[in-house]
């Protein structure tokens, strides 16, 4: 018996150590990307637009001036990558913040008051399930035009339902809990009830969903820009660089390899953080 106990304890400890290693990796990756992007203006004052015509198509790791090589216009791949991160991070974080705000308010109303609003939210959820974001984008962005604002706007419009559904489910469960009923018996008003008893209890799952969606929306924005439905192809962005790189795939593989790696490492960092948060805040797996 003694051995089995220490055995499982040892296993759990090694698993926890592994998980904390993942957490550290997540923090390092996300932190490095966020810092590089925040200081991109200082690191690369030309905004990745400078053309070194003498050094066109420099392969990577051969020149200190262009560590990751240059594209056929002589633009530095590393500089464009770091500057291009601004678009990805803005799209990821801004869309999630507004989507979560809108969705939380709608979910609170739907879950707390039920009835008409509840029905509206659930029917929106049905529509969202049938119309993946790429189809929404193909329809609306191809007609109304791209740009960072439109991309974020349509992400918010088509994703708030996810948060609304999550919050609604949580509120429905919380309403029946003793501490909420006790508070109601004491005559706590609706708004105070939502603020002090409901919202603090649904922050955990909400934050996990937000972390995972930042990662997801970075992928979506790069897809849209790659397809020509996202941000202006002339300004540096990861999806735009990959769209360029596709045309030079034969002559300059590095133009399409490195921006993809940048996306992967950023999203991996965020996913690691999201997973760690899920372990910590949501052990029963509601998200």
């Amino acid at each position: 018996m003694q051995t089995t106990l220490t055995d499982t304890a040892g296993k759990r400890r090694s698993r926890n150590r592994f998980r904390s290693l993942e957490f550290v990796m997540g923090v390092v990756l996300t932190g490095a990307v966020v810092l590089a992007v925040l200081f991109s203006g200082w690191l690369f004052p030309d905004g990745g637009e400078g053309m070194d015509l003498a050094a066109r198509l420099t392969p990577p790791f051969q020149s200190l001036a262009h560590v990751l090589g240059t594209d056929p216009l002589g633009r530095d791949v590393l500089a464009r990558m770091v500057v291009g991160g601004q678009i990805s991070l803005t799209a990821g974080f801004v869309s999630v913040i507004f989507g979560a705000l809108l969705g939380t308010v709608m979910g609170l109303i739907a879950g707390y008051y039920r009835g008409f609003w509840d029905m509206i939210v659930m029917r929106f959820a049905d529509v969202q399930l049938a119309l993946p974001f790429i189809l929404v984008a193909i329809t609306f962005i191809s007609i109304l035009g791209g740009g960072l604002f439109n991309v974020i706007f349509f992400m918010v419009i088509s994703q708030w339902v996810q948060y609304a559904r999550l919050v609604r489910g949580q509120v429905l469960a919380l309403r029946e809990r003793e501490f909420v009923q006790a508070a109601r018996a004491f005559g706590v008003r609706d708004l105070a009830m939502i603020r002090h008893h409901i919202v603090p209890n649904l922050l955990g799952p909400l934050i996990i969903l937000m972390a995972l969606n930042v990662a997801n929306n970075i992928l979506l924005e790069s897809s849209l820009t790659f397809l020509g439905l996202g941000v202006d192809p002339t300004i540096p962005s990861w999806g735009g660089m990959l769209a360029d790189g596709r045309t030079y795939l034969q002559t300059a593989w590095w133009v399409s390899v490195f921006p993809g790696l940048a996306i992967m490492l950023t999203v991996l960092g965020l996913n690691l953080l999201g997973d760690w948060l899920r372990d910590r805040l949501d052990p029963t797996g509601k998200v």
Partner: protein
Amino acid sequence: MIGFLLKRVLQAVFVIVAVTLLVSYAVRLTGDPAIMLSQGAGSVSEQDLQNIRQALGLNRPFPVQYLSYMQGIVTGDFGRSFMGGTSVAHLIGDALPATLLLAFVSLALSLVISVPLGVHAAVHKGKAADQAIRIFSLIGLSFPNFWLALMLVLLLSITFPLLPPSGWDGPVSLIMPALTMAVILSATNVRLVRTTMLETLSAQYVMVARSKGLRERVVLYKHALRNCSIPLITYMGLQFGGLIGGIVVIEKVFNWPGMGTLAFDAIASRDYPVLQGSVTVLALVIIIVNLLVDIAYGIVDPRIRIR
């Protein structure tokens, strides 16, 4: 059961109406098709424009146009392309099978990858193999599908010229697009198989099967896996929308002659009837698949009908 069926079908009808309204409305935002159609035709009088509008039925109010569009859909008529006047239904008839073929081959391939890995991870929960599979699945979730597609082209068409980089050149053309989608799908499916398997493995009949002395492989694949196939199929049905969305993007990289390519070509040439038709049909396919999966689940597992 009848109540459940009725409720699910009504829900699907509501979604179809909402989606078609949305798409029709978006296409109306493009401006006057009569002006677009007559561009490049030299001098066009107001009377000519009126005639075009009359012929296309564009002078009617939006609700009437929407209803006649819906009436057309029911009879398989999606209007005509602005480019050359081909029937949109005909174009879709050519493109939809290519997209569905890619979808089903990717799904099948992803099952071949993710089921053994997921079962293995569940059996060796917490061990090195489980952690390794987890990390691979996390990495698989972290890059865009079109980048994986580009990297495969770079590796298998340019560095080692083994496979055709794009288009349809016989069944070998299917390998790279299907592999791309299968890897992306497997990243989520492995986790799914692992979680459902873990729940099933703790069930008593698994213990009984083991204590009967059955071989471990029989216990896992015959007894346990069969019992978790229902939640797996349901969840994969729910993912169908995402799968179609992914394929639409991938088609662009491989010039795959499917619905995505049809839609992007329509965007490039501002051919709005084709755009409207292809988005509508893709949404319809997704809605119908979700409906069928739900009904199948309702038949197999009566508990779901109450929800």
